[in-house]
């Protein structure tokens, strides 16, 4: 074995004189959802509210910024969802992608934690099933709680309750699930 010592030294030399690893190409994460805005405009005029979610660095890094809002009691709002990828260049309107594939997507908006409000769908896909990019939100009396917005990709839109916004039978994969703190004054 000792006769092979020079060969071993050669191998060691090879190890430490290797070429440098090239810089990896940083991918353009065009699918990443960095921003969600849920804009609520009172049907009969008044102050709108905007709930926002922002997470520019994706799953790792910093925690997302989530801000809910304040709504007026006994008011009907039109809710519209805006979903964007703001770090991609050019900016990607993911809401537009969802609109294009509306039969494969559905949003579910659910109240919890004592929030007294009802949400209804105000749009349909080409098969007549709701999508949820446009909704109608009606507040009742003064309360506070949460509003959860969930987006399911490839759900079963024909399953019982799904068109009424019940996601327990919907299946599919969750693409987003955001909980907003909401106050009704």
């Amino acid at each position, binding site marked *: *074995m000792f006769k*092979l010592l020079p*060969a*071993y030294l050669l*191998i*060691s030399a*090879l*190890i*430490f004189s*290797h070429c*440098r*690893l*090239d*810089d*990896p*190409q*940083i*991918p*353009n*994460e*065009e*699918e990443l*959802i960095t921003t*969600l805005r849920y804009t609520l405009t009172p049907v009969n005029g008044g102050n709108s509210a905007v709930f926002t*979610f922002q*997470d*520019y*660095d*994706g*799953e*790792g*890094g*910093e*925690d*997302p910024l*989530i801000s809910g809002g304040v709504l007026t009691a006994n008011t009907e709002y039109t809710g519209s969802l805006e979903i964007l990828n703001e*770090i991609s260049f050019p900016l990607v309107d*993911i809401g537009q*992608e*969802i609109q*294009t*594939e509306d039969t494969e997507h559905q949003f579910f908006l659910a109240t919890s934690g004592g929030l007294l409000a009802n949400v209804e769908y105000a749009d349909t896909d080409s098969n007549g099933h709701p999508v949820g990019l446009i909704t109608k939100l009606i507040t009742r009396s003064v309360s506070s709680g949460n509003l959860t917005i969930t987006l*399911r*990709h*490839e759900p*079963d839109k024909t399953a019982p309750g799904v068109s009424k916004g019940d996601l*327990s039978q919907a*299946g*599919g*994969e*969750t*693409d*987003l*699930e*955001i*909980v907003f703190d909401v106050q009704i004054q």
Partner: protein
Amino acid sequence: MLRQITSILLLVLIPLIGQSQGCRLVIQGTIVDESTGIPLEYAAVYLQETRQGVAADSLGQFMFQGICPGFYHLQISHIGCENQNLYLRVDRDTSLFIHLHHHAELLNEIAVHGSREDNSTQMANSIARTEIARESNKNLADLLEKIAGVSVIRNGSGISKPVIHGLHGNRITMINNGLVQAGQQWGNDHAPEIDPFLTDHLTVVKGVSSLAYGGNGLGGVVLAESNPIEADPHLHGQLNYIFQSNGRGHTVNARLQQNRPWAAWMLSGTFKRQGDQRAPDYFLTNTGKKENNLGIQFEKKFGSRWASRLYYSLFDTEIGILRGSHIGNLSDLEEAITRPVPFYTRDAFSYGIGSPRQAVVHHLLKLENKWLINEKNILSIHYGGQINQRREFDVRRSGRSDLPALSLRQYSHFVEGIYHVTPRPGVLIKSGLQYQYAYNTNQPGTGVLPLIPDYQALTGSAFGIYQRSFEKGQWEMGVRYDLRHLAAATISRELPRRIVRFNNNFNNINVSFGGKYQLNEVLSLTTNLGYVLRSPEVNELYSFGLHQGVSGLEEGNPRLKQEKSFKWIVGLDGAVNHKFFIQALGYLQPIWDYIYLQPLNEFRLTIRGAFPVYQYMQTHALLYGSDLLVSYEWNKSVKWTSRASLVIGQDQSRGLPLVYMPAQSLQSDLTYSFGDRKRWSGTYLGAHGKFVFRQNRLEPGQDFLLPPYGYSLFSLEGGSSYAVGKSRLKFSLLVDNLFNTPYRDYLNRLRYYADETGFNASFRLNYSF
């Protein structure tokens, strides 16, 4: 007991002194079982050219007289064994010593193949060609499940990896024709890219530190090898076709070989197509599979001292992954667990493969050179090159399902020089130097941050093994040193994205000591003690991403140190009256700095809700267990074999069981072999039972779901072989999961979503000439 024998058959041609004159030559021989050395009485020997047939006597001996000089094909058959064909050049009286695989289940030697004389005191079990061929439509790892102490970790029905004595993944080294299988072996859902049809011999080494191979075989080594090409100058080949009812799968393989003066060559091609498989109660939607494989081998001798072999294989597969297992977050997982039928289950069969799916291409090239310097010294120089390309597709929006979400390419090169010295009979010294280089990059265009970074790894190694055999046994010792350099270029998770480089050097030392001793006529004792260091792999150090299937964020840990482990194995082999055989084995393996995925008490908020975070951490683990194999030959026709294995893994520091430990299992086979009749031979019927207990060694909270219940599976098998002139037609029928039992297995990563496959009948046709 240094048995320098081949797995399938050993031939010692002892030329007897005497002049060849006309047709007065004699061919005689002895036929014994390779595993036990027992003479095989009534073995039938047929000399094709003279159409003579004889039967071996009680000492396993046979003789043909009045033979003319020339070339002969000899066919040897015995009840319960695969037929063997020999090609002989007879120019003087010839004496043969022939090994058949009668007790194939007892094979526990490292096989000696071509240039490798690695018979050692390592504990190993093998599977022979016959058994591989019968089920070559399955994955390579599935074939290994027949060995006591080996289980399989699965990702649905299409992807499987071996588990040896409770360890899997990075801790198992796969050796493909003498090369450490390169590629993305770190992934539990990355099956080894090896075609069973190109594998003539499959061996599992259970001890640590198989010093000649390197890699990171802290948990054991799997060796897949092809045989050297036979000496026969005529064109021989075989055609295989296997149909499986579950998944309506078709597997076709053709293999040709010939030993011409210019070189010996072998060519093999395999095509597999399989559609959605079916659990007892529903289709497993999107579990189809395509596979196209190729193997080419050339062997050439240059003079009497130099031999070369060139081997190339291509493995190209596309595997569908159960559609219902693709989920977005924890609530999806919880919902999937409660569903009796997986989501997206279609009520119709389909051959289509949609996303999620994997497409993998693996090229392997090996050049072996062996130089017999003189009687006592052999120098072997090998080069191996591999290219692995893996693409994984997810269900994505806006037509991006056709863009891979993971796309990795790896180039690797391997060079080794091995020097054998036999200074005197019974002593073997083997030493070697190895150099390995791997360059692994993410291919652009995925639109996703990579799960593992680009990296290059360089390893230089040296090893030395000393083996000494004496009358009643053998002992050996060896040492190996690896210097491993790993350079990785990761992309930061913070914005702006930037490149963060890491450099690591690891010094690994492996030491091994083993002995084998024949205590008396009945019992022999084997022991092996090894110490091994395993450096952390790139996924353990730097991975970052969503862990599909368990819905967690997986984080590498750049501060990981090497794992250090002792493994001690004691084996006892017994043989009573040539009828009853027992192989018992016990092992103990402490692992310091055992690397595992620890769920942190931390949830990370993302756009898809909160995800639990898993980080690679280190602890002190202890594994122990035993394997048992019992075989009883009632009479010439009836044989019963049973295997049991038990493994216990404990995290000593935290006082918790280790996760993904195989449950206790018991397997039993009953085989009835019929005697040969005219053109019919090798006729058999068999029944097989497998009982897997529930894995009770898991605390609540260590998994999303309690381990599934235990289960029993039964299968039936039968086959025969029919001679048509000089060729042979073999057929067999195998029925798996006879009672269509619904069950789930703890080692299947998709156990949260769906049952295992149900009833499956597979029919195999083999034509060989």
